[in-house]
């Protein structure tokens, strides 16, 4: 690379990366700083360094309970996304061809690019007592049942699975599509049955895609607050809503920053653990 080229590359790259620095990387570092303060350092307020926010979080079991609840929520949503998404990706990648595949693929991915808040809101209409699901089930069944899933744990899981299912389908689809057909044929001609082919051949080859999908679901779900709030009501207190409250209701920003920073640490550990699979899935 010549000097002129280097300057040109720098000129092209600098604006985008400066922007990312100011709007993402500096804020994330600033949050670490904030989490170590007694007070927000604006205006005339007195502030000093402290680790009280962290001792508060680690000392009070309420925070650990909520973090655990969010992690469990992330686990269940990821589980259902994988269980529902894998067959779907398999059908799209290996059983359909040409135009019908293209159209169905787009239909599956499309909701993922539409407004998340609005989709959660649409579930509120469906799930509430005397709502659409309740009526539909009662119209079919001869006896009366009362389905009111709204403001419950299952409602949160349904809404979140709906939000993140397309992620898993997309990443799994990409890794399934890359599997060489002749491998499967070879296994079959050697007498392997389908369960064995799935378990010993397809699943290992699709694993990077499944892991990538799982991470892309798990991480945002652990940090979710809008979905539990809207669909969970009273049951919807999670680690995410706890952070939200510190910033918009209680106004204890240093504590909120400490909570956010702990969540960031958890997320980074997960991302680091999954990074070999993520890298494999990206290529």
């Amino acid at each position, binding site marked *: 690379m010549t000097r002129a080229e280097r300057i*040109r590359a720098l000129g092209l790259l600098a604006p985008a990366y400066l922007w990312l620095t100011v709007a993402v990387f500096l804020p994330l570092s600033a949050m670490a700083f904030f989490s170590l303060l007694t007070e927000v350092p604006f205006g005339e307020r007195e502030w000093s360094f402290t680790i009280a926010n962290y001792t508060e979080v680690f000392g009070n079991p309420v925070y650990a309970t909520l973090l655990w609840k969010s992690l469990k929520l992330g686990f269940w949503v990821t589980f259902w996304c994988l269980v529902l998404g894998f067959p779907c990706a398999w059908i799209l990648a290996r059983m359909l061809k040409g135009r019908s595949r293209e159209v169905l693929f787009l239909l599956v991915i499309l909701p993922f690019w539409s407004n998340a808040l609005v*989709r959660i809101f649409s579930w509120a*209409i469906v799930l509430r007592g005397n709502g659409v699901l309740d009526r539909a089930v009662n119209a079919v069944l001869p006896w009366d049942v009362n389905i009111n899933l709204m403001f419950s744990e299952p409602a949160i899981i349904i809404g979140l699975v709906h939000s993140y299912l397309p992620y898993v389908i997309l990443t799994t*689809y990409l890794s399934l599509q890359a599997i060489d057909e002749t491998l499967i044929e070879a296994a079959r001609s050697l007498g392997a049955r389908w369960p064995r082919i799935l378990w010993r051949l397809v699943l290992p080859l699709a694993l990077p895609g499944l892991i990538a999908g799982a991470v892309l679901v798990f991480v945002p779900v652990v940090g979710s607050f809008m979905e539990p709030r809207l669909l969970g009501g009273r049951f919807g207190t999670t680690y995410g809503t706890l952070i939200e409250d510190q910033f918009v209701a209680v106004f204890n920003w240093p504590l909120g920053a400490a909570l956010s920073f702990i*969540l960031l640490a958890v997320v980074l550990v997960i991302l680091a653990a999954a990074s070999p699979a993520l890298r494999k899935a990206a290529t």
Partner: protein
Amino acid sequence: MIVVARAYLGLILVFLYAPIIVMGVMSLNASEFYALPFDFSTEWYERLFANEEVLAASWRSVWIALVVATVATTLGTMASLALWRHDFPGKRILQALLFPPIAVPWLIIGTAMLVFFFGIGLGRGTPAVVLGHVALALPYVIITVTARMQSFDRALDEAARSLGARSWTVARKVILPYASPGIIAGWLFAFAVSFDQFVVSYFLAEPGDSTLPVLIYTAIRKGFTPEINAIATIIIAVSMTLMIVAARFARFGGTR
């Protein structure tokens, strides 16, 4: 087997689309409590278009998204062309840096932006929202444009140069036209990221000066009305249409 497969896919599609369709239908139902039988009415849409607050928030959301998409596409295209064209030490690090804005939960990024923007005296408001949205949209633009350039035949670049074209001319006449479907798709993705963005806007928007998703969230928490149904239906129709257009340009999942 193929019948079972199609049935399964059908069920997944019902799961994905039924609530959205129900919402759309209910936005045209006269009853406020979603009562059946269905009674067609455009009342909620009429009320919606008379609601100043919603109209102002919609307009704000649209123009923020337009500004964000344009800025992010310009900066993102520049960066991705540099990443595509040149090899230099640290390139992999620069590419890896694109992932935090996508992978870190928006709750963390949103709250971090809030404290930082207050720290530097910018505070809440539309400039903060734009600053934040552009950063979230940039990685999507860079990834989309870079994906498009992967299929570029570098011989074209060399041919143009050997015919005496200067690098600016090559960029303008050869590279940019080739990149344009990726750039258009990137612009549409950036628009969608901003227009649909709730979490980051929620922390950065000034109360009373909010974007549409923030307004909807506040309204739902106060107790929702079918007017919300109507605006939600419009939003989903707009963003889905945009994405169909974007997919045509980006050719997602196309036949290989």
